């Protein structure tokens, strides 16, 4: 085991040390468990905060969303659902809205039938391969999804290890990014007041990161990539919108490890990730130099919130030495 000229060590002490480590680390369980979620569909609103640079851009967008709070307003995006690979997942969806809705997990569930107003439906499925998935309401020709009915479903490896999948690349911290858009005047204002959206025209004027405008997202600890040099962040990214989102990382290239559930045999090193509508990707970002760097969309109008600069799709990367 040891090279002949290696310094001798006290093997008993070594074994004791290893045993102590084993006691300190909670055992990794690979037993499939049950994960039960209740989601309530309700109306709500998305608050857009003003640019602190110019004071422009505050707005309130009427929305619909899933929430884990019975009787609460809908959240945009909906709650993060997590499970471990192989878990028995049960999601009970209560439709507290006056319109029909549903709940679909892309690449996981197939039932697209409606839950009528006031109705309840329970979806059961086995947590699939570790990765990122998007859940959403598939009804009403994208209107329900555009209104905010979407979220991310995260599947971790069965053993609960900090790796993208069992035996896959390891990470030290993880963030999830749900990107989307809203066309306030033509879709949200119309649908929320009971009107019929002309779905042949879509000109979104708000571009959201985790349901937030850029300045909120850049100040959000759960959205930022934070850590020290040497750390590796796993980003689970889903696009719940109807536009492709072309996201650019400053500070370092990232490694593309999974696209729409397809794990790459060899990881590509890139600085732009372009996620199509309802696409999902996983990327690894190595924190390799100290500093503060933006991650932002590179598509002009999508960098704004109704034309207010930097209030579109963005996040921050903060790296300590």
């Amino acid at each position, binding site marked *: 085991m040891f090279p002949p000229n290696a310094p001798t060590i006290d093997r008993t002490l070594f074994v004791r040390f290893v045993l102590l480590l084993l006691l300190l680390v909670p055992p990794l369980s690979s037993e499939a468990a049950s994960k039960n979620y209740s989601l309530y569909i309700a109306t709500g609103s998305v608050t857009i905060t003003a640019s602190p640079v110019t004071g*422009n851009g505050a707005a309130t967008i009427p929305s619909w969303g899933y929430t884990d709070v019975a009787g609460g307003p809908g959240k945009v995006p909906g709650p993060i659902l997590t499970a471990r690979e192989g878990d028995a997942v049960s999601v009970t969806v209560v439709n507290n809205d006056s319109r029909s809705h549903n709940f679909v997990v892309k690449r996981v569930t197939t039932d697209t039938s409606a839950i009528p107003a006031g109705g309840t439906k329970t979806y059961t499925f086995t947590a699939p391969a570790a990765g990122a998935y998007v859940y959403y309401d598939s009804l009403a020709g994208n209107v329900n999804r555009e209104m905010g009915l979407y979220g991310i479903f995260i599947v971790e490896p069965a053993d609960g290890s900090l790796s993208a999948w069992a035996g896959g690349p390891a990470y030290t911290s993880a963030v999830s990014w749900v990107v989307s858009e809203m066309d306030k005047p033509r879709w949200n204002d119309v649908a929320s007041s009971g009107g019929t959206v002309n779905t042949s025209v879509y000109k979104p004027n708000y571009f959201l990161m985790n349901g937030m405008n850029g300045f909120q997202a850049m100040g959000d600890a759960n959205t930022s990539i934070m850590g020290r040099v040497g750390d590796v962040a796993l980003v689970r990214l889903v696009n719940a919108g109807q536009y492709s989102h*072309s996201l650019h990382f*400053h500070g370092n290239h990232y490694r593309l490890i999974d696209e729409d559930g397809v794990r790459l045999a060899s990881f*590509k090193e890139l*600085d732009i990730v*372009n996620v199509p509508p309802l696409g999902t990707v996983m990327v690894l970002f190595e924190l390799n130099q100290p500093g503060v760097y933006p991650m932002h969309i590179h598509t*002009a109008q999508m960098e704004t919130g109704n034309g207010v*600069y930097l209030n579109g799709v963005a996040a921050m990367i903060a790296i300590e030495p």
Partner: protein
Amino acid sequence: MRATLKKRVLFLGLPAAAALAGLVFAGRAEAATINKTVCVRNVTKTLSGTNVNFWGFTEGCMGMGAGLVPGPVVEMGEGDTLNLTLNVMMAPEEAAPYNGHTIHLHGLDVPQAEDGVPETGASVSGDTYTFTAKPGWAGSYIYHCHVHTVKHLEMGMYASLIIRPKDANGNFLKQITSTAATAYDYVQNYLISTVDPGYHTATGDSTVFADYNPLYFLIEGKEGKSKTAPAVTLAAATGKKVALRLIGLHSVNARFTLRDSNGSAKSFTIHTRDGRSLPAPETVSSVSISPGQRYDILFTLPSTSGTWYPQVEFQDLWNGNTYTGGTVYGKITF
């Protein structure tokens, strides 16, 4: 940022700095330092008969000559150091808080002090941006202004930055990367961009910037609406290898194809993407280019003479429809 560099040298101490310089000199005798200064000037482009004002980078800093769109290409070798200075004297600009300009070295993984982002501390009054290209970085990049990028990129403040592999004597190799399989006989940049004239007159925070309606579609700053009036041309010899650098500065979707005179798609091989070699080269018959992306592709011309048309279709972000007038042609005769 020169101040930062000086501090680092002082910190290391002169002996350490000298030793370090000696090591670098001994190990990579071919490494060069490239000093370049660019300014910003107005330039009017006539697009489909309409005059549109742009702000372009130019090396002509002594007077009020026109800017270039795209700006001057920066070409450097792996191992080389670039000092790219932005001089903002007499530069056209917006009113505060979006006044001034910077340079962002897009894709070059520079430290925060060289990143050119005003919101993380970059000066908007001119600066020198420095980095050394690491081995393995051969490929295509961009330098562009990072002040109010929505407005300033639309105004044309962008240019290609190309990193090339070098031989042991410090000469550029005619290859995309240090891998011999990427050798080419001809190379051209295909920097693609779009123009919404409304963005050229709007300023600051404006609802104009919430909606993008491009009217003009460019390769290397030129329209090329038909095969008879291509944006870019190349006269090549039969059987030779051609590399194209596809560089996305547009704000919609785009699809690149390479077609013969009958319109049949020809396959090509992607060797690098975003300035990095792909784990394995990918041979395809079309590629989507998203805003900010770069692809370095390679193909071999037929052994009999003819004409091929590299082309870019600019597509609506929502429905994927190609815009009216949104197909831009290049032309390769051989």
